């Protein structure tokens, strides 16, 4: 069994070789780790690793795995096998993270902007959220016009990374 995960900008591949009696060997990007005393129920997982028992609340969804241990929460993205290496970190900043409405598009298409320039005001839950340029670059256009309802994952700005013309 093998699966790829992401955490922030980090990515890793995990291979699991099940053993008997609650043992398993896992490889993270090739390095091997042994666990034992593995126990699983509906939403908990526990195992022994390097002589210590670890217990987590877990939630496995199509696109992520969430864990909780004590008062710490962790969320790992699941990268679909064979899929294009999904959105670059740069682009993902321009995706709507939640359902909302495009309130204003602030910069004319074709304009060059510096990182941090406000590009779109998104309204969600009666609050305004500003979407900023992740890098220096050019705004090519807006896939969703002002007043359009958008869903999580919708691209809000067609943007390309570019040094300022003439600065090279």
């Amino acid at each position, binding site marked *: 069994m093998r699966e790829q*995960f992401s955490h922030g900008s980090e990515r890793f591949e995990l291979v699991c070789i099940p053993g008997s009696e609650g043992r398993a060997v896992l490889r993270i990007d090739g390095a091997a780790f042994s666990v034992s005393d593995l126990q699983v129920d509906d939403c908990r997982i526990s195992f022994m690793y390097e002589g210590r028992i670890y217990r987590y609340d877990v939630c496995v969804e199509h696109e992520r795995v*969430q*864990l909780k*241990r004590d008062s710490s929460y962790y969320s790992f993205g699941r990268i679909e096998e064979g899929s294009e290496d999904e959105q670059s970190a740069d682009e993902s900043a321009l995706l709507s993270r939640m359902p909302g409405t495009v309130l204003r598009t602030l910069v004319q298409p074709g304009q060059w902007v510096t990182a941090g320039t406000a590009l779109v005001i998104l309204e969600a839950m009666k609050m305004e959220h500003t979407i900023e340029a992740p890098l220096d670059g050019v705004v090519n256009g807006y896939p969703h016009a002002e007043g359009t309802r958008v869903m999580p994952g919708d691209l809000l700005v067609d943007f390309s990374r570019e040094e300022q013309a003439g600065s090279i």
Partner: protein
Amino acid sequence: MFHKILIANRSEVAVRIIRACRELGVATLAVYSEADAEALHVKQADEAACLGPAEAALSYLNQARILEVAQQYGCDAIHPGYGFLAENAQFARRVQEAGIRFIGPAPDSMDRMGAKIPARATAEAAGAPVVPGFDAADASDTDYIKAAADIGYPVMVKASMGGGGKGMRIVHSETELQAALDGARREAEKAFGDATVFLEKYIVDPRHIEIQILADGHGNTLHLGERECSIQRRHQKIVEETPSTAVDPALRERMGADAVAIARAVGYEGAGTIEFIMDSTGNYYFLEMNTRLQVEHPVTEFVYGLDIVQWQIRIASGEELPFSQAEITPRGHSIECRICAEDAAQGFLPQVGNVRVLREPDGPGVRLDSMLYAGQRIGADYDPMLAKLIVHAEDRSAAIRRMGLALRDMGLLGVTSNLGILAEIVDHPAFAAGKTDTGFIARHYSDYRDPEPGIPEKLAAGLAALIKGSPVQRGDSANGKAADPFNAYGNWSNT
């Protein structure tokens, strides 16, 4: 006492009011939007009626529909909770005219305290200190620019009808003022249907301290001490406590007396809150009055041993408060944390999801006011607050420990919440030292990141994913239950 109360709200506050009604032996009618058909308050009320579509204007803000339902179901009172119509004097009047009791102050009191501009004038006349500001209702933008210069930057643009941080902007210089006025008006118009804004001197990183008022219709107006609500993000409170580390008995008496004077000045009846801000030298200023139940009321309930929601209902039904100011004394310390569907690592951006794992903390002095149940869909239609965790203990350090444990015992997966950062906040040395002001989050968590996973977390994530949702069927693992993953792995125990 009333026969049946319509609860014109949703979420944990509706659930809270249903509980109070039950203890008083009053029947309850829940109302809900189509998005909330499966909500907890709908399940818990004696009866429930659908108001309309998810959009608040067509459901929870739909005055005509709510009145129609109240009459149809024979309700003799309406409790508005907080938010939505709670501070809408026009609604209170319409309720009154329909021969139904609005559980809250008289519409005239709401008019005078509901909008921030007249409220400032009232507080000033009652002898309470107010923040230097500019509030000419018909002023032009040029007037604002001049006034802001006179007050001195930074200034704050606020919506007169505002609350919850909506329609509020901090302005550091004249170049930012116009955009702030426009943005605040736009947000205020959307949220409150009134674009009127005003200016106030921005007091940098004040403490937010408020006084709870309880006033009956027989001339008794009492205060129930202060709550400190300085820990805020996006100008919205997330951790509240009483007593405040900045308030001693003498100051409590002074602030309480100011609050009582303001409430008396408007003939206030019911539960209300006078909000003050306090600068770093201990000067305090009237900020606004909330003419309704407050989200953080449970901390006061804990230390005063009173049920504020029940008293709202009893006062509205004509009862007289049976105790005097001298007869009520606070005991111990109480803290509340607001649990919200939001991602602290992404600027507290609200989150949607499905509640897959829910563990509720318990134990002595632990209370959870919640709208949550396992399997619930958390959508984007309403406020992201899901629940409030409240603890009470003998003193502040015991309360902090108790809150830390309760936050650790609580579990919520499937929707990203602020539980992780809340646990960090109550564990922070500055919080323990009482160094709390509204700059706390920006100062300590401006670059908040979720904890870095170590090897055990990666192993756990991998094992969970591989066991509980193989790539082939992982789309089906949505309810958090594995289809039948164990056979493939031999002897792993399923406990």
